[in-house]
């Protein structure tokens, strides 16, 4: 009689993978979004230095995505 091998997945490992994905993917997403905004903001700043504040704000808006990712990761683990 053949004995079927049963593989178990350790829930802790899956949690760690989930947490990693949450931070990693949101980090990528923030990066992609900030890339375009940041380069445009620097372009605007080169024209007019006083736009620094506005440029900074617009650039860090997508930062929230990765913060949420980090929070989710903390909640999972």
């Amino acid at each position, binding site marked *: 009689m053949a004995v079927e091998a049963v593989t178990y997945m350790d829930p802790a490992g899956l949690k760690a993978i989930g947490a990693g994905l949450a931070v990693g993917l949101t980090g990528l997403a923030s990066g992609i979004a900030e890339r375009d905004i940041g380069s445009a903001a620097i372009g605007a700043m080169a024209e007019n230095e*006083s736009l*620094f*504040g*506005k440029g*900074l*704000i617009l650039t*860090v*808006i997508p*930062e*929230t995505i990765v*913060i*949420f990712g*980090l*929070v989710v990761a*903390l*909640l999972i683990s």
Partner: protein
Amino acid sequence: MLKPKQMSRAVIVGHKDIMEATVEAIHGSNLFHLEDYNEDGSGLKLGRPFKNAGEVSKKLIQLRSISSFLGVKKESIPKKKETTVINELDSMLDQLDIEVSTKTEKKSELDSRLKELETLKKDISPFSAIPIDMELYHNYESIKVFAGTVKENIGPAISQVTSTYEMEYDQSTGTVVLFIKKEDEAKISEILSNFEFREIRIPEISGTPSTLLADITREEEGIQKQITSLETDISSIKDKYSEFILASEELLTIEAEKAEAPVKIATSEHTFIIDGWIPDDQFATLERTIESATNGRAFVSKQNITKADTDIIPIEYDNPKITQPFQEIMDLYARPKYKEIDPTSLIFISFPLFYGMILGDIGYALILLALALGIKKMVNSDAVKPLMNVLIYCQISTLIFGVLYGEFLGFPLASLHTDHGIIPGLIAGFETITLFNSPVGGEVITYPIHRTHIVMTMIIATAIIGSLHVNFGYVVGFINEKRNHGFAAAMFEKGSWLVVELGIILGVLGYTGYAPTEIIGIIVFLIGFVMLVKGEGAKGAIELPSLLSNALSYTRLIAVGLSSIYIASTVNLIAFEMILPQGGVLAVIGAIIVFIFGHALNTVLSIIAPGLHSLRLQYVEFFGKFYEGGGRKYNPFGYIRKYTEE
């Protein structure tokens, strides 16, 4: 506090005879923000610069070019009397000009000769191993000269074609020079091209390359020496005259500003009208100054500020000294408008508070505090000082939170008993005290607060702090709006958010069964929603979810802080638990290096990450609720003397 300085619009009118005296008085007081006059067809014309303008600006240009040639740096020197500077200005300037101009000419001559030699050297160097006089390469009728580089010796190949040739080949550089009869040129060229021949330009000079190169090196050394001695001369001139240059440049700048002032002023044939702004409390001072300067012949009047004016009123902050460094952070975003609340004093509290909450480490606080104090002491710059002051405030807050969190460079100060065993603290015998159970996540609040062990509680706590801060923003917005557009507009635009939130809270309380308010909550929410749509239009409805995302955005207060702790404790782990136990002197050195560099990196990150995130919370989440900004900077016509005194 909380409000920009009260300004008055002042107009000064008088006869052209007293224009110079008036301008002098205004400039001296350094209080009056001059409004540039634009010709608008009313018959008034822009004034002409005073008659000394040309001379003053000529001298100023002369002085500035000398100053930049000598490299005079701004430094603190004892103030000179204005009259002494004026008396010696002309003679000193001439003397200085003579001394410097000969030196300048000499130096540029030497520099260009040095460059020439450099090129020549480059041209000759390929021929350095070939002992033929450079003169012998030119001026032949029946001989063709090839000079260039090839990939290998071409002697055998050439001798197959002709026997009448002269060749020199330098194995090391691959340089070849070849003298052949003119008629063989075509054949030889073909062979050369097979050997990847690349022609080199032959410089037109005489002498063998090796002696030429030696000569050039000798001449270069001579020139270098001359330049060095010239530079010593220049620096001694600089030392001798730099005080005079700084003082007279300041004086001439002041004179030039005054002399050019009439081009901003409206004039008619016999009169002038100066228009501008002045802080309200200084109006009397200005009036008095001008009266005494002109014997009362100029007429100063205060104008009513019209509604159209409010957008162009120059803004001067009016904050207590302690909060003034944060004006820099305000300027980074935008100056407040005249009728707006100036939030400098608000971010004076919230910015360091959030920074400290994120960083919260005694070790980093002390390092950065020392750094900030050091830089503040050493760098004497008006741009750096306020930023260092901001950093110092932030570090004080970090220190307080560090004591609260009990962290030192990523090490916990107190030992903590957990389910997985005891985490030892840095201070022996300092035990964590259990205070009470947290309502969420089955976590326990202790002193010191171990942030890494109560993540759930901290996330909720920071989100609550966020809601409070955002709502405070709405309240400030309400006040702004009420001041500018009345109570109703404020209620619809800003108050509606508070009503919506109240509705949500009541609804949630009802839904979870804490209070029988579910229906009331929904009704209040709907009322708030309708008010919001009336106040802000469709935009308000779309922005509704931002209530949640804004509050959650404050969870970065714990998230960024945790990442900082983890970096620090990873550095400690690598240094003290992975490298150090290897034993030996090398391990000790390695551990120390990892420890120092790791924490140096994290120290830099400790300025950037908490700083930027805290700043963002002010700019985006907080300012977004009420702040408009865009005020003009109050820039009084005048000069702050550094090197001279009257």
